[in-house]
C-alpha cells in the first residue's frame, strides 16, 4: 500500500531528526535544562558541513563531524555565558541564541542569506542515517550509564544537594550541553545533505519547539521514549495528509490528547532494553516450566 520510496523519505527524515532529539533528550531529560535554541545548533552544524563540502572539498563524514564539533564549540561559548543562569532564564537565553543564529545567517550573503544555499551534494542515504543513529544511541546510552551520566541525573533531581556532595554542577551541565549541541550539529549536517538546500527559515523557533515537544512527548529521561517519539511525531503529519487544511489542527489535537492520557510522556522515564526483554522472556520460560512440572 505504501510505496517504499515515500516510506524511505520519512524514515530518513525521522532518522535525521532523531539526532537533535537525542541531544536534547540528554540536556532536558537527563540534566533538567530546557532549551529552545537547538535549531540554532542544527543551523550551525548544517552550514558548517555545507561550507566544508562545497568550499573546502572535505569528504562527507569528516564534514558532518566538523559540523557537529563546530556546533559544540558554539555551545561551549554560549554555556560559559549562560549556564550560571537558573531555570527559566537559561531557557530564555537559548531561545534568544537560536533566533540570533537564524537572523545572522539571514544576512550572511556568502552563504546565500535568506534566499538559501542551493546545490549542496546529496550524500545522505538511508544506510548512513541508520548507522549514525545506532552509533549515536549506543554512545548516549553509555554516557548516561557512566558516572558522568549519573552525575547529570543528580543535577536534574536536586542541584543544591548534588553540589553539596561534591558534584561540579556547572561542569556537568556544560558537558551535557556540549554533547547535545554536537548531536544537533550532526543532525543539521545530515539535513542539509538530504535536502541539498539550506535556508535559515528551516531552523526557525518552530523547529526548536518541535524538538522539545518530541522529547517531552516521548517521556523525559528516557532514550527509548525519544526514539519512539521522533518516529511517531515525524510520521504523524504524513499520516494525516488527507486532512488537507485541517491537518495541523488534527495533529495538535492528537498530541494534546496523548499528553492528557499520558502526562509523563509515552515511555514515562522507562527504558526498553535487551535486559528487560530477556527478563520478560525468562519469566515466561519459568512459568511454562512451572506449568509443565505440574
Amino acid at each position, binding site marked *: 500500500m505504501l510505496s517504499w520510496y515515500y516510506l524511505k523519505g520519512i524514515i530518513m527524515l525521522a532518522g535525521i531528526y532523531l539526532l537533535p532529539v537525542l541531544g536534547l533528550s540528554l540536556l532536558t531529560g537527563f540534566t533538567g535544562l530546557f532549551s529552545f535554541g537547538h535549531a540554532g545548533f542544527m543551523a550551525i552544524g548544517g552550514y558548517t558541513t555545507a561550507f566544508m563540502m562545497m568550499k573546502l572539498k572535505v569528504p562527507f563524514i569528516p564534514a558532518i563531524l566538523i559540523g557537529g564539533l563546530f556546533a559544540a564549540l558554539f555551545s561551549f561559548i554560549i554555556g560559559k555565558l549562560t549556564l550560571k543562569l537558573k531555570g527559566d532564564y537559561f531557557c530564555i537565553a537559548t531561545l534568544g541564541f537560536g533566533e540570533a543564529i537564524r537572523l545572522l545567517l539571514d544576512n550572511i550573503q556568502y552563504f546565500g542569506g535568506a534566499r538559501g544555499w542551493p546545490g549542496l551534494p546529496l550524500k545522505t542515504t538511508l544506510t548512513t542515517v541508520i548507522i549514525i543513529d545506532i552509533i549515536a544511541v549506543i554512545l548516549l546510552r553509555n554516557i548516561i550509564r557512566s558516572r558522568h551520566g549519573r552525575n547529570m541525573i543528580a543535577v536534574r533531581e536536586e542541584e543544591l544537594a548534588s553540589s553539596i556532595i561534591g558534584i561540579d554542577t556547572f561542569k556537568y551541565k556544560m558537558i551535557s550541553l556540549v554533547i547535545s549541541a554536537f548531536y544537533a550539529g550532526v543532525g543539521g549536517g545530515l539535513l542539509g545533505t538530504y535536502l541539498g538546500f539550506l535556508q535559515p*527559515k528551516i531552523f526557525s523557533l518552530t523547529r526548536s519547539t518541535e524538538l522539545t515537544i518530541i522529547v517531552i512527548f516521548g517521556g523525559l529521561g528516557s532514550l527509548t521514549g525519544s526514539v519512539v517519539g521522533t518516529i511517531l511525531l515525524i510520521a504523524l503529519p504524513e499520516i494525516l495528509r488527507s486532512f488537507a487544511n485541517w491537518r495541523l489542527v488534527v495533529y495538535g489535537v492528537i498530541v494534546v*490528547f496523548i499528553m492528557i*492520557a499520558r502526562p509523563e510522556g509515552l515511555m514515562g522515564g522507562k527504558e526498553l532494553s535487551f535486559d528487560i526483554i530477556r527478563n520478560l522472556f525468562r519469566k515466561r520460560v519459568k512459568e511454562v516450566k512451572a506449568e509443565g512440572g505440574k
Partner: protein
Amino acid sequence: MKKFLSLLVVFVLIASLFSGCAKKEAGDVVKVGWIGPLTGDQAVWGQCESNAVKMFFEELNNSGGLLGKKVEVVAYDTRGDGTEAVNAVRRLTSQDKVIAIIGPNSSGQAIPISSVLEEMKVPDIATVATNPKVTVVDGKVKPFNFRICFIDPYQGAVAAGYAIDVLGFKKAAILYDIGDDYSQGLTQYFEEVFTKKGGQIVAKEGFKTGDVDFRPQLTKIKAANPDVIFMPYYYKEVALSAKQARELGITATLMGGDGWPSEQLMTMAGDAVEGSYIINHLDFDDPEVQPFRNKYKQKFGKDSEINGYLATDACTLLVEAIKKANSFEGEKIKEALEGIEIKGITGNIKIGKDTHNPENKEAAIIKIENGKYKFVEKYAVK
C-alpha cells in the same frame, strides 16, 4: 476517560490511513499533483492556488478530459516548509504516481524538491517561486523544474527601471525584510539597476519578519528625504509600514512588487497606499482576465489572489505540453515544455529551453487610485 481518548486517537489515525485509499479504477484517470501551503502563514495563497487548480481540471474533465482521460488533482499541504515539500513530492511521485506537479508557491520549497523530481522523472511547474536558482543553479538548468512567473531580478529591475526612466525619480529609499528571501532578492536587483541607471539609494533599512513597528526605520528614511520608497514585501507589513510612514509625514511615492496585490491591502491600509505603484504579473481589469476572475468569484465567493491566475496558467501550460507530447510520460512532457508557447491569462508565455523560465514576459504596472488597482501600462525593462 483516558481509555476513551486513546481509543479515539487510534481510531482517527486508522481512519486517516485508509481515507486516502478510496481509489478509482486507474485505467481512465491520470493524476496531477499540487503542493503548497494550505496551513500556516502563507495559507491564503496556497488555498487560492489549490482552488484554482481544482477548478481548472474540473472544467477540463467536463469538456472531455485530456487525451481521452479524466484528470484527478491530488493536493498536499507543505506548511510552506522545504522539508515538508520534499515529503509531499516523494508521496506524489511514488505513491500517487502523478504525471506532473503544479506549485509550490515559494522558492524555499521549490529548490529542495528538484532532486526528487529528477530521480522520479516528474516535471514540476512552480507558480510564484521567483528565485532564479529554482530552475538554474551554477549555470546548469535543472531538467524537471519549470516556472510560470518572472524572476526576482526581473521584477526588481522593472521596478527600478520604471521608477527612474518613466517616473523620473532620482533618490530612492528601500525598506525590506531581512529575514525573507523574496524581499532580499528584489532589494538586491532594485539597488543594482537603480544605481546603474544613475539613481541614488539614499537609505536602506531592514526589518524582521513579523515586526509591527516600522517607525525607527521610517524616521531614518524620512531624514534622507527620498522621492520614492521601494517596499518589496507582503501586504500585511505593507499596510502597517505605509500607514506609519504617512503618520510620520512621509509623502514620497511608495512602490512594491507582487507581494502587494491582495484584496486585503485596501481594507488594511486605506488611504496610506493611495498613489503607489505596484509591479505585478497581470492587470486585474484586463478584459482577457475577466472570465477567470468572475468564475472564481462565483465559485468560491471571494476574489482570487494573484496566485490563482498563475496556477491556472501553469495548468494551461501543462495541458498544452501533454497534448504536444501526446503522452503522459514525465520525460516527454518535460521535452514538450521546453520552448512551448501559450497564451495565458497573465500574458504570452514562452518557456526558454536553457532557463525553464517564461522569457521576456511583460510586467504590468499598477497604480492605486481611489482605493482601486488601476492598470497603467505593460512594461518590460531594457
